[in-house]
């Protein structure tokens, strides 16, 4: 049977984190009561007119430049017409024929090799309102216009991905870039990142693409990957059976993990795009591009190389740290506050990520301050606290944001490094465990470990284990 290859393209809708909406001055902050961040413009009232928020263009340009796109000059806003109760004007202001950015690319590692995906188009548009359908009232739906007019960036890729792992790499690269560029919080669960996929299959030895199927309702990485896997399998099977693939739009069903037909080409929407007469063509001049380019932050790939170079980290550790901007930021801030690089990196890539994974959180959600991280490293390095005590402290400051020194003081975790104080405890332990002491003297090395353990137990972990071992050895040999 013939081998088949898939071509996958993604449309990413990212909500930009500007202070105000894209065409009016309403705030974008999340969590406000319904319909409190609205005005005649975002409600689409008669007579209202849009005015473009320049900050949205700044944010969009960062992405356009970071993804190596050409800037359309001018770029044109257009009206995309369709009727839906979440769309106040029954048209959406978007860009179609002259998007802000075009013909770029993104590169990211997949299975140890760099993969390049071409970006067809990056454009600015406005979000729609949010509809809710109350369970107990089937005659009405509720509309919250707070979301209407929120700035969205749509990033459209060419169908340059061929496997779910490439799709995953692409989504991670996009999300990471949005966070690094500081243009979106990219929180999936709040709908700040939404996807649409297109999938086609073809015989592996043929270059010509197969019939394209679009998939909507993809609200998580998991949904995208599930839908892509399902579609590749479905289409491959159909083609192998000699069936023709229908050019259509399908919906992903998260519950049953299948795609189902939504509409075919014959019933496709006609959006009747035409240039938005209420907005002038957007002309981004050289100066504007130069300014945004100069302010462009370092992205994950470059930062990883720099961390290896500057801090002598392993490529692996640097990779883990830079995968999430907040993590790498914490690392560099702690080092700049005097923490040695290697132990600081170990805390973050080890215990911290373990705690985050356990709670299904990201570094941005945690409260760990770089000062506190630097303190923990310093307290351990200076033998002020023991390893186990340090872990106890870290687990707390990771989510409380407290100072490590304060927690150590509060819990009385300071390491006992005083010979006299520790000597008394050791004498007690030897007295209580005469048989173990005897065994050690007879040459059973493991008995020493047991006795050290008892010292640690008696001091509730505060004893300096190295000093305790030395003292024990000395005392046992002297007796």
């Amino acid at each position, binding site marked *: 049977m013939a081998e088949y290859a898939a071509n996958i393209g993604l449309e990413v809708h990212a909500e930009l984190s500007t202070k105000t909406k894209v065409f009016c001055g309403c705030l974008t902050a999340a969590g406000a009561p319904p319909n409190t961040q609205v005005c005649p413009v975002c409600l689409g009232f*008669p007579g*209202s007119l849009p*005015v473009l928020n320049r900050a949205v263009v700044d944010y969009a340009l960062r992405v356009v430049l970071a993804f190596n796109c050409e800037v359309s000059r001018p770029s044109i806003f257009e009206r995309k*017409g369709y009727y839906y*109760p979440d769309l106040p004007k*029954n*048209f959406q202001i978007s860009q179609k024929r002259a998007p802000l950015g075009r013909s770029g690319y993104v590169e990211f590692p997949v299975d140890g090799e760099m993969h390049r995906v071409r970006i067809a188009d990056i454009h600015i548009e406005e979000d729609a309102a949010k509809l809710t359908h109350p369970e107990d009232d089937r005659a009405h739906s509720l509309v919250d216009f707070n979301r209407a007019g929120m700035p969205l960036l749509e990033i459209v890729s060419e169908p340059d991905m061929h496997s779910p792992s490439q799709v995953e790499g692409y989504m991670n690269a996009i999300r990471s870039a949005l966070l690094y560029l500081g243009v979106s919080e990219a929180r999936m669960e709040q709908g700040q990142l939404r996807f649409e996929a297109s999938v086609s299959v073809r015989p592996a030895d043929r270059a010509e693409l197969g019939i394209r199927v679009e998939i909507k309702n993809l609200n998580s990485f998991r949904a995208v990957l599930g839908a892509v896997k399902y579609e590749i399998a479905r289409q491959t099977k159909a083609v192998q059976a000699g069936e023709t693939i229908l050019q259509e739009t399908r919906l992903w069903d998260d519950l049953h993990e299948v795609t189902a037909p939504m509409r075919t080409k014959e019933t496709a929407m006609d959006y*009747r795009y*035409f240039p938005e007469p209420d907005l*002038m063509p957007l002309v981004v001049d050289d100066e504007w591009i130069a300014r945004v380019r100069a302010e462009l932050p370092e992205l994950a790939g470059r930062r990883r190389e720099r961390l290896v170079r500057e801090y002598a980290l392993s490529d692996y550790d640097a990779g883990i740290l830079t995968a999430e901007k907040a993590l790498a930021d914490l690392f560099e801030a702690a080092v700049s506050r005097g923490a040695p690089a290697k132990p600081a990196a170990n805390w973050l890539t080890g215990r911290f990520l373990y705690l985050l994974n356990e709670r299904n959180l990201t570094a941005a959600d945690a409260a760990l301050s770089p000062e506190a991280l630097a303190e923990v490293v310093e307290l351990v390095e200076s033998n002020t606290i023991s390893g186990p005590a340090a872990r106890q402290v870290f687990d707390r400051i990771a989510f409380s944001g407290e100072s490590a020194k304060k927690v150590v003081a509060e819990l009385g975790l300071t390491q006992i490094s005083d010979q006299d104080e520790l000597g008394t405890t050791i004498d007690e332990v030897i007295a209580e465990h005469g048989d173990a002491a005897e065994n050690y003297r007879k040459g059973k090395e493991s008995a020493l470990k047991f006795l050290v353990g008892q010292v640690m137990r008696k001091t509730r972990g505060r004893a300096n284990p190295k000093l305790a071992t030395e003292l024990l050895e000395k005392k046992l040999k002297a007796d």
Partner: protein
Amino acid sequence: MSTSSSLHELTAAELADLLARKEVSAREALDAVYARVEEVEEDLHSFVLLTRETAERQAAEVDEARAKGEPLPPLAGVPIALKDIYCTKGIPTTCCSRILEGFVPPYDADVIERCRAHRLVFVGKTNMDEFAMGSSTENSAFGPTRNPWDLDRVPGGSSGGSAAAVAASETVLAMGTDTGGSIRQPASLCGVVGLKPTYGRVSRYGVIAYASSLDQVGPITKDVRDCALLLGALAGHDPRDSTSLPDPPPNYTRALTGEIKGLRVGLVKEFMEYQGVGVAPEVAEAVKAAIARFEELGAVCREVSLPHLNYSIPVYYILAPAEASSNLARYDGVQYGYRSADADGIIEMYRNTRNEGFGAEVKRRIMLGTYTLSAGYYDAYYLKAAQVRTLIRRDFDAAFEDCDVLVGPVSPTVAFRLGEKADDPVQMYLSDVCTIPVNLGGLPGMSIPCGFSPDGLPIGLQLVGPPLAEETLLRAAHAFEQSGQFHRRRAVPVRQRKGRRSAVVREG
């Protein structure tokens, strides 16, 4: 002259002078205007809403401020009538459409803010063709307005209510909007002065959109000086309208020098005939007489040809309905205005609401626009029309290399009879043949009285200038006006027979 019974007949400049000298109060002027409304409105139906409570409060505030010696703007206390197309906070605004039934805007249009800042007094909202689509005011959901010069004839449109109200002295000043001639054509048919400013000169913020790339707000007044005064109050940059021009407006009254020696005037050939058919003989005669007058005043006149103007009507009837079909999509019954009571589900609610809420002409243009924007037709219609629009603009640019002002008729005929063109949309569309090209060019255009037909119906002269040449238009119009008596004639609209029911809606 300052007896309160004739105050409504004064121009704004005359009234403002009396008000400033405290010879009359704003309240007296308002009472005179409302007395006139009482007298003639039953016959005319210029207004769809009289805002008497608001007006009396505004007038009282002006009088109080003046008594205290507070500084006031020049037009403070002058009554103005507002086309029912501007959003007025707390005052119903319908665009004379059933679909905006019950809509009370939560905000003021920029021009309304400016009127308030200039302390003008709001007489009421005037009648218009539904969503400004029409040339006769017969397309109003609230019934037609009649021409004060002949009650069997239309006042023109779409700002027919405003033009009729000024012509019949039911107000001192009025405002209209002009997308394809909606200020100039009714001004011409009612024998008053109307000016459509350069696109972007006056803010469109809060003006209910018909065709966004063509709509402009402007004054409708009794003479040219009033026109300059009101334009000065309305013009200026507004950051809420992205198409608003940043240039600070000049003091327009300074342009009224009476001096036009050497002014280069071009009579546009394409304004005088369309597809081989000339304008009505009495109109052609009045325009030619006006040219002769300009020459007597020292202007240099010649004929010019702008060949692409012949495509103006088809270009306009592609672009304007395309924009309208999108602008009017929001009237769906979800948030405001009319919602069909009889609907099962969202699609039916949309369908019934729009079917019951819009009138025939509005539906016709929505369908036209929806069609020309559809996939597969866009390039052949919208794109082609946009390209021809560019050619029309170039024709104007070329003409203004040799001319300071272009002139011609405003309307190919005098006011036509009610119902005469109501069933023939194409004939109705042709009545805007001379005005539409000016909107396509984004240029300032003006209508001033230049004569009367043998039946005693007014004829308007159109003056067109390059972008931001409002001062040139006003200077030429003023010199022409002051050399004759046309602007002094007033319509006498009172019908002898009584007993018809008033259609006026009261505020409340």
